[in-house]
């Protein structure tokens, strides 16, 4: 466990360092704030000969994901990065990359979607492509972003998974926030991820295969079912790799990260950087004798429904923090899935949704305290008045 010294990195820098150490065969990427920086940093690694990567400076994100898919099908280890409009411009190709079983790694920086145009954090972009067949891992800070990106390579390329994976950080909050990060050595990363060996690469011209043929009623369903099975397999693989990472480097990862949940009655569920603020809020409430707790969700796809139901098994009231509004008219995407995860279980506490932080609107301990105070009323038996609350907005 020869871990190098901690040093100060922004989330983007940590992601770029991970990319340098992963040393992918091909990167195809297009600039967009706030993800641009990691691609720029990576360009320097290419220009300085620090990586073996062929860097394809495509003319759009659609072409970025197209080139990534082609390169991956050809047999290369492939990475890219984007945000917001770039991610949804890729949307068509995200589905295709998964469908073609290309284990591409995407460093995604969460940013609001237009309109109105905005460059700051929320999760609308990542949530908009949540059903594309990608593994989705959220990071709370730069350290996690770094660790997650390295693990994502193993998860995606696992022979029983072979699905693309995106690791997300929160725009500016993590991407541009400077933190102390422990990097692994280049050798440690290299040995952890191993070599990628594609099973049926296009470049094996002596064994030609057709990739992406037309499937009709007689085969499409079977092929989609295989993807569903791969997602199912990822359920097993993700914690295995998180454990292995922990054994080797001291930081363990699973689907979820419960905080003070053993006896918690009032539980907040959150993704990404807000988990840090929520933990501070929980600590404050605990000093006042309030049994507050936090359930941080690390992996959103595959959705850890069973783990969530288990972790919320003793909660008396639950608040789901949605940093995106699905505009479904009945709450955000995280809310819908968490609430559904509890259905049919032993414990079905009242679950309410808070849509917050859209377009980078700041969220602080006082805001989150307010949520716990609401939960205390629900736990005391007050009926749920409002299922969905917009937190921190002028109305």
């Amino acid at each position, binding site marked *: 466990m020869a871990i190098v010294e901690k040093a100060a990195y922004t989330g983007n820098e940590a992601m770029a360092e991970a990319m340098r150490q992963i040393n992918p065969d091909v990167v195809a990427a297009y600039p967009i704030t706030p993800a641009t920086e990691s691609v720029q940093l990576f360009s320097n690694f290419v220009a300085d000969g620090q990586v073996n990567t062929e860097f394809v400076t495509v*003319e759009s994100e659609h072409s970025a994901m197209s080139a990534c898919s082609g390169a991956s099908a050809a047999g290369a280890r492939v990475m890219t990065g984007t945000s917001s409009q770039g991610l949804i411009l890729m949307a068509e190709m995200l589905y295709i990359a998964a469908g073609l079983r290309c284990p591409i790694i995407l460093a995604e920086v969460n940013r609001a979607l237009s309109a109105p145009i905005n460059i700051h954090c929320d999760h609308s972009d990542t949530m908009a492509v949540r059903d594309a067949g990608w593994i989705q891992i959220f990071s709370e800070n730069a350290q996690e972003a770094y660790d997650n990106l390295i693990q994502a390579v193993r998860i995606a390329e696992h022979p029983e998974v072979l699905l693309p994976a995106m690791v997300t950080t929160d725009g500016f909050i993590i991407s541009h926030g400077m933190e102390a990060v422990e990097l692994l050595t280049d050798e440690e990363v290299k040995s952890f991820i191993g070599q990628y060996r594609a099973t049926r690469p296009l*470049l094996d011209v002596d064994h030609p295969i*057709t990739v992406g043929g037309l499937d009709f009623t007689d085969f499409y369903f079977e092929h989609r079912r295989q993807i569903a099975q791969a997602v199912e397999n990822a359920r097993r693989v993700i914690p295995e790799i998180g454990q292995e990472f922990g054994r080797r480097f001291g930081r363990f990862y699973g689907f979820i990260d419960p905080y003070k949940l053993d006896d918690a009655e009032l539980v907040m569920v959150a993704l990404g950087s807000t988990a840090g603020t929520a933990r501070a809020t929980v600590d404050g409430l605990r000093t006042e004798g309030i049994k507050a707790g936090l359930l941080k969700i690390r992996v959103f796809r595959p959705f850890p429904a069973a783990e969530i139901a288990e972790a919320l098994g003793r909660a008396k009231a639950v608040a789901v923090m949605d940093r995106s509004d699905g505009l479904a008219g009945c709450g955000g995407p995280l809310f819908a899935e968490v609430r559904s995860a509890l259905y049919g279980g032993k414990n079905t506490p009242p679950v309410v949704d808070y849509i917050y932080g859209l377009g980078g609107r700041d969220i602080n301990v006082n805001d989150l305290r307010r949520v716990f105070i609401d939960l205390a009323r629900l736990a005391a038996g007050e009926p749920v008045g409002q299922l969905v609350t917009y937190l921190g907005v002028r109305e």
Partner: protein
Amino acid sequence: MANLKQLAAKPEPFSSGHRACAGCGAPIVARMVLLAAENPVVCGCATGCLEVTSSLFPYTSWRTPFIHSAFENAAATISGVEAAYRSLKRQGKLPVDKEIKFIAFGGDGGTYDIGFQSLSGAMERGHNMLYVCYDNEAYMNTNIQRSSATPKGAHTTTSPAGRVIPGKQQFRKDLTAIMAAHNIPYAAQASISHWNDLVTKVQKALAVNGPSFINVLQPCRLGWDFPPEETVEIAREAVDCCFWPLYEVVDGEWRLTYKPREKKSVIDWMKKQGRFKHLFRPGNEAILAEIQANVDREWEKLLKKCGETAEK
């Protein structure tokens, strides 16, 4: 110059049994292009007639490695395959002695229109790849909608010959010239009717170091509306009336590769195709004259670029 005997002796690179219509020119393009290649190739194809008829799972006509991913991205997809090749070869993860060539195919919709940006980007980046547009002058796979390659006056399902509007209102986009303007080492226009010209161009295109583009005229018996046995003949007449001149641009030098002995009338060529039949009703003479005048003007311009004169 290609040799027919040698080509015929090569293993068939694009197998029969595909689902293209009787008389379809698209498989002719694929087969001739692949026969021309002397190295192993990896192919990509945009969504469209060629792709859907040749890769119906669990069958495939492609005896080369082949990838289809979407409609607008054949160029970007193959550019990624080529980038992987360069990377893996440089790192010693592929045998250094094996030289692979990369070819993307796209219909005119997938090339002139929705795939234009992806094509332009791939050409500008300088990938070692050949892009072949099989130009049947409309979106045939989705039932004959107009594209920017559809000639003026043609009836398509989205530029129908109606009581007020007589077919497509605009002249076609000159994509080959636009690709030449990318200053790529090789750009050419070819036709399925002139097999030797086409095969030679593919060989030249694959021999350059960098991107190349060939636009191949591919009559569609369904969309253009003519008997299926006339496909090659219709293509030949398009060349002879100078509607579809055969030329190449090598490192910026324009050269005519075929000059019709006698320039035929474009109107006679149009007469053989149902898509233009409404133009032969009384009252549309001016449109026909305008189309002929446009072909004449474009031909003169091309002759000048190629350093040729109008007389033989």
